[in-house]
């Protein structure tokens, strides 16, 4: 189930709705705070920048993203990874930090990190190191987290993503953000505050799950760009299968480093907006914080370097009480784990046990098609619009659905896309269903489109058949057309008779038409179409009516 980032998706999903997105956005404080859900600072090209000062300030956004690795077991122990299980049921002695236990690295987690690194155009370090990061918290029983601080598994990557823009016509603006590094690290347990009894309940099921921490350079300028980048990353991770990317289950967690400055000047003091665990609020949280900082700077104040949390109820970021003032994690090399060595087919030792060797080039060869390539293929193969390709790829299974309809019908892909995005996806969204739950199979839709294509039903009748198919009675489009008599009326005499009766019963309208008001003809057409249940050929009806009213 694709967790949708509203900022981006709302644009994509709503194919017909025109939006305005500014490429490099200047955010006026008056503008951002009044936006409704899903709206963002980038929108409204003519953002009413009132104060000259604010015009100069631009936002700078960097992200740190924690992606839970999709694996059966944890990073360093053989206990199961599963969401919402009874508390502490997925905990090994190592996860509980019992003395005498040692970490044993999960091969799958390393492969996932390498694959993700490759998909994000990173350099994979053939030697990487593990470190301990110390802090004291009850959900981290060892008192340290094993991470990769000195030498992470992947560095220097790049994520390309598209921001949908709407000027005079729809198009997609290419953006890219540098990936500083990807490091393997352990997740912590979960704390449940029991305010009533003034205590904390600790569940270690999450403790020790493998995370990929992706550090993105501050190459983004507003919430919408950040949301688009995260959405693209989410799609890539899901395509790779290295992370399920479900934000509501905490599989993808975003921290944003936000600052404002005037272009050309050094970056401003940044704040960190922590734990944005909801796709819906990502853009909003960042834009609120940008706007807040701009207001501070404009009023002559200084931004304080602090950690802030986004409160989705009020739509504001609020300072978090720092755990212990200035943090000093006392990083040190993890003594229990030798360096992680990776190879390629050329450098792999001849006599090595294959279960102990990870080959980078082999993983490269196994990379599946990435979302961006899928989109390009869809545009090229089927001649659909780029923004439609975004919508298709954004929805789980919708690409496959579209392609199988196209393969089964004689209708052109450009006609199919309208039905898939407007009618099918519209209905699915309205009812909060996934593509897989669609009551209309690709074959059924293909049949319907064939009837339309062959001229056996009219377009309005096709919509009626679609509604019938949606009820899922198991009848095919063909059967519905027959049983409800929705086929195009072939009987010329019958259509003529209906036209005549409409004209007879609307003498006033006929007079108006004869008086020169041609628009009234449409009203009569509507009457005829209604009487024929949309089955009459509109061109024929118009010609007949024109003849009879002239």
């Amino acid at each position, binding site marked *: 189930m694709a967790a949708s980032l509203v900022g981006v998706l709302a644009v994509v999903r709503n194919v017909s709705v025109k939006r305005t997105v500014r490429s490099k956005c200047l955010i006026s404080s008056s503008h951002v705070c009044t936006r409704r859900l899903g709206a963002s600072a980038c929108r409204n090209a003519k953002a009413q920048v009132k104060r000259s000062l604010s015009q100069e300030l631009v936002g700078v956004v960097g992200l740190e993203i924690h992606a839970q690795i999709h*694996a*059966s*077991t944890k990073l*360093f*122990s*053989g*206990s*199961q990874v599963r969401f919402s299980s*009874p*508390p*502490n*049921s*997925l*905990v*090994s*002695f*190592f996860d*509980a930090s*019992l003395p*005498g*236990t*040692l970490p*044993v*690295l*999960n*091969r*799958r987690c*390393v492969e996932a990190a390498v694959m993700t690194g490759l998909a994000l155009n990173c350099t994979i370090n053939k030697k990487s*190191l593990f470190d301990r990061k110390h802090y*004291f*918290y*009850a959900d981290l029983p060892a008192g340290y987290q094993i991470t990769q601080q000195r030498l992470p598994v992947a560095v220097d990557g790049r994520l390309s993503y598209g921001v949908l823009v709407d000027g005079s016509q729809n198009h997609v603006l290419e953006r890219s953000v540098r990936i500083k590094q990807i490091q393997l690290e352990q997740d912590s347990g979960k*704390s*449940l505050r*029991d*305010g009533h009894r003034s*205590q*904390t*309940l*600790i*569940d*270690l099921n999450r403790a020790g799950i493998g995370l990929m921490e992706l550090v993105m350079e501050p190459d983004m300028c507003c919430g919408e760009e950040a949301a688009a980048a995260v959405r693209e990353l989410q799609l890539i991770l899901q395509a790779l299968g290295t992370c399920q990317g479900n934000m509501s289950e905490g599989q993808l967690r975003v921290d944003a480093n936000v600052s404002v400055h005037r272009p050309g000047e050094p970056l401003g003091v940044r704040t960190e907006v922590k734990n944005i665990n909801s796709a819906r609020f990502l853009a909003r949280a960042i834009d609120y914080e940008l706007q807040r900082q701009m207001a501070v700077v404009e009023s002559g104040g200084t931004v304080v370097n602090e950690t802030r949390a986004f409160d989705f109820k009020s739509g504001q970021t609020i300072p978090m009480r720092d755990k*212990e003032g200035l943090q*000093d994690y*006392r990083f040190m*090399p993890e*003594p*229990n*784990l*030798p*360096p*992680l*060595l990776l190879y390629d087919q050329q450098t792999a*030792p001849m*006599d*090595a*046990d294959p*279960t*102990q*060797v990870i080959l980078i080039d082999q993983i490269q060869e196994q990379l599946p098609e990435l979302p961006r390539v899928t989109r390009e293929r869809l545009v090229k193969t089927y001649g659909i619009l780029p923004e439609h390709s975004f919508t298709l790829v954004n929805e789980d299974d919708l690409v496959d659905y579209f392609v199988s309809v196209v393969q089964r019908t004689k209708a052109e892909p450009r006609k199919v896309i309208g039905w898939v995005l407007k009618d099918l996806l519209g209905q699915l969204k309205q009812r909060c269903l996934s593509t897989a739950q669609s009551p209309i199979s690709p074959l059924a839709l293909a049949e319907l489109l064939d009837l339309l294509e062959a001229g056996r039903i009219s377009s309005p009748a096709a919509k009626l058949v679609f509604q019938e198919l949606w009820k899922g009675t198991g009848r095919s489009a063909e059967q519905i057309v027959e049983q409800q008599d929705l086929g195009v009326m072939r009987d010329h005499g019958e259509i003529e008779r209906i036209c005549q009766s409409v004209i007879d019963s609307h003498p006033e309208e006929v007079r108006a038409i004869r008086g020169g008001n041609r628009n009234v003809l449409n009203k009569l057409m509507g009457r005829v179409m209604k009487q024929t249940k949309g089955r009459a050929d509109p061109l024929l009806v118009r010609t007949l009516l024109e003849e009879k009213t002239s």
Partner: protein
Amino acid sequence: MYCTLGRITSSLQCVALYLRPVRHRCGVYVGPHVVENRGGQNITRHRKKHTSSLSQSQTPHHHNPKVPQTPTWECVREDQLPLPTKVPPDLVDKLERLALLDFRNQDGVDCLEKAIRFADQLHVVNTDGVEPMASVLEDRTLYLRDDRIEEGDCAEQLLGLARNTLEGYYVAPPGNIPLPERDEREVLLKYSEM
């Protein structure tokens, strides 16, 4: 009495032979199975060196000439060492916060200063051109485990070890208990013969 680094290193090497993760599984120590044949053998050049030293140590009667049979040390003269480090109250403060330790008394600070003095001997050793070593295991192959569920489901056993539990959860204090405020600490320090 101080022993020189050379000695420290050789005894560390000796210890290292026993520190190796013997059975590649977390949890309890299982027993002295030989790792070498489980895979990744001779992945690095150093590997062979270790294999040979391992075989030496496995026969207890065969003496490794690098390991002295009796404790031995050489004194390092005070004038070879840098000036002794004094630990100011501010630093004690910081260390206490970072380590969640309570040692704000004269004994505690003395002990810390002695430990630093002991480590000062490392300055005598010439390390020019020597790459720092993070761990004695760093030329070992990192064992990779299959992604198979083999552990967990022992909540009862684990929670049995905890002082306080509730409905399957560990119970912890509401948050980290903050250390006393600075001025409060000054007073405490003053009365602890510092």
